[in-house]
């Protein structure tokens, strides 16, 4: 490549990299004259609870209220009403909660809680905890508060509407039922035996997909197929729902407790009997996953004799403190400056090539983390560590290649020949390194929740690193070297016989 062409190419490349780096890391500021705010790529991540905080909600069993609610309610009452209210609730030793004394509630017997209430609470809270575990959050917390209430925390990486849906649905302890209009379908009508249950009709519930649409798939047992074949003809079609008058619609509804999870129209029933309902955009299949978990759980347990009332959903600050992200960015900034400066000091202008590689790695990984798999790539401290390790690895591999070039040069070869030889000798070693790391990243995808996400992020870092070390930095080096007047100085090489001359 000619020198002029190389110079032009390097200038263009520098401009592009500077612009992209600015897009990636230039700090946020309000755009003058508008209400808009400039936000760099690194501020557009879905953050885990450790870095971004999250949401939480309290759940009280029906008939149980918090100390605050009790005192708030009591403070607005007077006279007999106040006395009645005081008598309607009681505290037990070891808990600040207030329990209904109403016999029908079946919570308190004398001065102690009934065994039935205790057992129901224990079983329901265990199942609720298992439901959140199945959602695969990297960080979540289900805790028993004061012995007989629940508090659930979810990370901020979950969009607020999806978090609210999960926080309200997964605590539903009702029974799974099918109803057509006001009539509840009785499994006993389709299955012999006294103990017929809804699980004798529904075989499996899962999330299916068709092109970019996700839907809830309900598969039936043979008895369930008989039921759906029977009712299918009486159901309205989805086109009827769109026509306006919804009062005359007949649908088969899937309910857990009072919550209607799906409305089955005649055209939702496939020829095989399988039902496909609640179509949503593929990106929102998380919603359906929540439905699937709830229905599966209700099918398996048959519901609980206890219901929870949810308090409002609230948000909380990052677990590791408000400014943790800023502090991390400062630390990463210092490291970035170090990996830009040190290679130049050590390897001369070849270090500048490493600098281009470093910035390219930063731009590509930062953008991929933010945009490639929106909603599923939450940034945790593990992500920061993977990014950091990748950044250093890219530079160490560059240094490794530089040493190989230097070794070739020390054998008396020309600079061009040394570069060629150095790259050739390290090529397969670098390929092997990245191949093993790719296998590692793929293996980590097996890991649950956070480790799975870490695997995805590692895959991005490894592929980007391989691209930078094997192709990109090599191409930049070729261009930059072509433009260089003194190729010895470029690599900081000194040849003794040249000195003699």
């Amino acid at each position, binding site marked *: 490549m000619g020198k002029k062409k190389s110079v032009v190419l390097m200038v263009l490349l520098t401009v592009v990299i500077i612009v992209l780096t600015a897009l990636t890391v230039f700090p946020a500021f309000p755009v003058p004259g508008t209400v808009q705010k400039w936000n760099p790529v690194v501020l557009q991540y879905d953050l885990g609870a*450790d870095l971004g*905080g999250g949401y939480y909600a309290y759940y009280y069993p029906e008939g149980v209220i918090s*100390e*605050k609610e009790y005192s*708030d309610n009591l403070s607005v009452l007077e006279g007999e009403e106040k006395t009645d209210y005081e008598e309607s609730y009681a505290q037990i030793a070891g808990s*600040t909660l207030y329990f209904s004394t109403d016999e029908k509630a079946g919570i308190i017997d004398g001065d102690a809680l009934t065994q039935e209430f205790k057992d129901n609470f224990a079983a329901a*809270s*265990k199942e609720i*905890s298992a439901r*959140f*575990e199945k959602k695969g959050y990297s*960080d979540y*917390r*289900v*805790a*028993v*508060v004061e012995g007989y209430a629940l508090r659930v925390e979810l990370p901020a990486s979950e969009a607020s509407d999806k978090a609210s849906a999960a926080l309200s649905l997964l605590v539903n302890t009702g029974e799974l039922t099918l109803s057509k209009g006001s009539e509840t379908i009785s499994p006993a009508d389709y299955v012999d035996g006294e103990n017929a249950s809804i699980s004798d009709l529904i075989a499996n519930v899962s999330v299916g997909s068709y092109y970019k649409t996700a839907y809830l798939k309900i598969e039936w047992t043979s008895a369930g197929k008989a039921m759906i074949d029977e009712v299918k003809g009486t159901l309205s079609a989805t086109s009827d729902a769109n026509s306006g008058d919804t009062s005359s619609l007949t649908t088969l509804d899937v309910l857990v407790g009072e919550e209607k999870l799906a409305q089955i129209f005649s055209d939702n029933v496939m020829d095989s009997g399988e039902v496909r309902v609640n179509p949503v955009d593929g990106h929102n299949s998380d919603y359906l996953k929540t439905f699937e978990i709830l229905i599966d759980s209700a099918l398996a347990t048959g519901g609980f004799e206890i219901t929870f009332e949810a308090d409002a959903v*609230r*948000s*909380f*600050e990052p677990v*590791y*403190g408000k400014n*943790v992200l800023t*502090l991390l960015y*400062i*630390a990463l900034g*210092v*490291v970035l400056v*170090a*990996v830009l400066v040190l290679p130049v000091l050590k390897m001369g202008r070849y270090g500048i090539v490493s600098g281009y590689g470093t910035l390219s790695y930063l731009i590509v990984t930062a953008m991929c983390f933010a945009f490639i798999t929106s909603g599923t790539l939450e940034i*945790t*401290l*593990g992500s920061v*560590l993977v990014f*950091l*390790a990748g950044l*250093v*690895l890219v*530079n*160490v591999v560059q*240094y490794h290649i530089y*040493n190989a070039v230097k070794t070739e040069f020390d054998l008396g070869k020309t600079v061009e020949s040394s570069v060629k030889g150095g790259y050739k*000798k390290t090529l397969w*070693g670098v390929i*092997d*390194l990245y191949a*093993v*790391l790719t*296998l*590692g990243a*793929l*293996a*980590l995808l*097996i*890991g*649950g*929740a956070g*480790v*799975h996400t870490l695997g995805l992020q590692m895959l991005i870092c490894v592929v980007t690193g391989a691209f930078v070390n094997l192709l990109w930095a090599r191409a930049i080096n070729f261009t930059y070297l072509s433009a260089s007047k003194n190729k010895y100085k470029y690599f900081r090489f000194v040849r003794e016989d040249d000195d003699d001359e």
Partner: protein
Amino acid sequence: MMNKLCAKCKNVTFLSVIIAIVVALSIVITAIFGVNYAKTASNQNTLTVSVNRYFYDNRLADVQAECEKELNKLSIAYTYHGEMNGDECELVYVFSETTELAAAKASLQATFAEKTKDGGAWDGAFINVSTAKEQALVNIPAAQFVKAAVAVAVFAVLAFIYVALRYRLYMGVTASVAILTGAIFTAAVILLARIPFTSACLYAIVISAVLSAIFAIFTLNKIRADNSETSAEEKLENGVATREIAAITAFVGGALVLVGAIATWSVRWFAITALIGLLSASLIGLLFVPAVYLPLRKREDKAAANKSGYVGAESQKTQD
């Protein structure tokens, strides 16, 4: 110099015994005391100060200062505090499960009652103080531990297959042993040092396995590229990738020290955990990989010599 030092520490039995002792100790300590889960993932006591939205938006700092003052007066230290926004706003102070909060609650209630009374400094504010004991149902789900362990094991198997096919069988064994040892040793040190365990510790363990793989591959690469007619010991002496391992350890370690120095206490624990993972991987790369490599290499050389009918090999066998 460093290479020679690494190659000298080639007594695999000695290193294995040290690693085994650390692992065994960590198992015993964990069996006796349990995993030391971080406060964010374990049982805790909370003190919640609920404040009406208007007052919270305008005077949060004052409420917070009052809380801190009362807690300091009673010498009660909290592990962290959170600010919660919703229809109602709360300041939540989180304490260890052994902290007694009745006195703090009574003291804060009295302070806020005085301030919010008619004509008081904070007239019109609604502030409520409550305490609660929280018992975590799940710390880190067991399934997450199992899946992470399976992922590391699969990584070791895949690395073995790749390296064995590309290089030599014993090199594949070396790479997979490095990966497994890196993860196990890091986990053992974290458990033994009683570092507060969070899901971030799982990441550090997994990344330690990845770093061990990187270090092992660098070394195996160098040894494989050495075509000289020297002995296995000499090849190993020149082959340990000390420069690469030192560079990665110095940069990543430096960054972690920096993060630990400027960040909050919780991130500091993560930085320490990650540093343990990094140092464990370096130890594996510098000492354990050469120590595992050499006997495996000698074994294969001997097997190859036996197969070729080399007389020296027979006499060696007899001596053994």
